[in-house]
């Protein structure tokens, strides 16, 4: 569904990605793991059109989206839930959700998506009038995912949904991610520092280090890889 080939991205003189390639099959949950500054966020921002690559290509459903502006990429069903959530802080929960459906004109469909989002995150329904900036971190994450779901995505990219969220809530959010994938058939690219969790819910994994893919394979295999365990999973025994 998404094929990234030999992506090079730099910020001025700093190279953030030096030849990243991966493939994500339709309907899968694939994870991209790696430490701080590995280039995970840069990869997602390039796919969604916020950044332009120096070279390389991005194919989405067989068509190149490499040089398209961000808003037209969303229109094709590729949604990005950014790092740090980026909810519209002064807008209400309700308005944030409406913004998620910005490109949809069909009111009935918007209403249906809204019901779907409330089904996944009932908490959002209770907080409709609340200003998004006053939600807790976990609620903001739910809103960020809900906002993306409002736009009818076929492909969802999530950048560290566990960041700064209480452990109990992390489990809930990951369950929801799996639920969204199963019930709607939405393909998911999950970026995480929490490698344990990410490998648990995904089928395929890529490990990024200083702008390169250094390891890849089925998540179950990577979970047992001693080298990976030592670097990203705290080196403890298999749980």
């Amino acid at each position, binding site marked *: 569904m998404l094929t990234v080939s030999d992506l090079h991205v730099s910020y001025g003189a700093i190279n953030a990605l030096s030849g990243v390639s991966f493939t994500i099959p339709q309907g899968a949950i694939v994870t991209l793991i790696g430490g701080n500054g590995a280039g995970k966020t840069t990869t997602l921002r390039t796919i969604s059109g*916020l950044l332009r690559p120096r070279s390389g290509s991005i194919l989405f459903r067989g068509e190149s989206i490499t040089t398209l*502006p961000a*808003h037209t990429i969303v229109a094709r069903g590729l949604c990005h839930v*950014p790092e740090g959530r980026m909810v*519209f802080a*002064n*807008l209400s929960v309700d308005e944030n959700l*409406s*913004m998620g459906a910005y490109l949809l004109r069909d009111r009935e469909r918007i209403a249906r998506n809204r019901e779907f989002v409330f089904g996944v995150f009932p908490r959002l329904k209770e907080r409709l009038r609340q200003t998004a900036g006053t939600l807790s971190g976990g609620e903001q994450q739910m809103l960020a995912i809900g*906002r993306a779901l409002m736009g009818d995505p076929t492909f969802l990219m999530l950048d560290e949904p566990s960041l700064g969220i209480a452990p109990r809530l992390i489990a809930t959010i990951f369950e929801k991610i799996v639920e969204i994938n199963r019930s709607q058939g939405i393909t998911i690219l999950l970026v995480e520092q929490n490698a344990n969790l990410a490998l648990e819910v995904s089928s395929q994994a890529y490990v990024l280090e200083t702008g390169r893919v250094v390891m890849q394979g089925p998540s179950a295999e990577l979970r047992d890889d001693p080298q990976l365990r030592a670097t990203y999973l705290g080196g403890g025994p298999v749980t």
Partner: protein
Amino acid sequence: MTEFLQQLLNGISLGAIYALIALGYTMVYGVLRFINFAHSDVFMVGAFAGYYLGRHVPAGTIAGGLAVMLGAMVICAILGMTIERLAYRPLRGAPTLNVLITAIGVSLFLEYTGQLIFGATPRTFPQIFPVTTVQIGGLSVSSNQLLVIGVALVLMIGLQLIVFRTRIGTAMRAVSLNPNAARLVGVNNDVVISFTFGLGSALAAAGGILYAMNYPSIDPLMGVMPGLKAFVAAILGGIGNIPGAALGGLLLGTVETFVAGSAFSTYKDAIAFAILIVILLFRPAGLLGRFVAEKV
């Protein structure tokens, strides 16, 4: 007491004009984080557009006056959008200072092109609306003042509805809060920014005509002083904050009018800048503004 009320009314009608201009500064600041110094010259062009359009409608009629006003608003909306497209859009992503300097350049360009085309000598603005004096209680109120207040009120309510009730208005607020997040939900930020310039410039045009009706001489540099004061009004209310700009304009107009009517009348123009210094010292975010810390 009568004199107080009279002055208050004068102040509010001057303030309503400042408010209309201030809204343009604050909206553009909201989406692009810079002060569009050319805005005061769009106000001037609005007045001149009214001057020329006024020749083609029957003078002193409500329908004619409204037609002139609408025409000038459309002309200035196009002008504002053109300025954004040609001068500011190529600088997207450039340091703010570059954009500010460009804005000053655009402002000078409009002022001196105005002198070239219209000449530097002030002209008398035609009476496009019927003029009478209404007696309310002991007050004698000119219909022009009521018109200023009425038109400003209608435009501000309209703006409020656009910003808070429409899809593009919500997108404007979203772009102003987080441009990248807006792009990620499918907003074409260029369209929203262009729309914002159009809207702000249309309000400035209305302000220009209302101003010209009450201070009936216009010249290519007429925008400078009201523009500066409206800028102060926008800062006073909290730059980027729409109700703040309206409030700031009304307050500033009122204070200025009272100072002009007091023993300190020579300081009437200085008062705006005194207020600016005081806000910057004690409440840099303005009356209604606040620095919103984003939760990460």
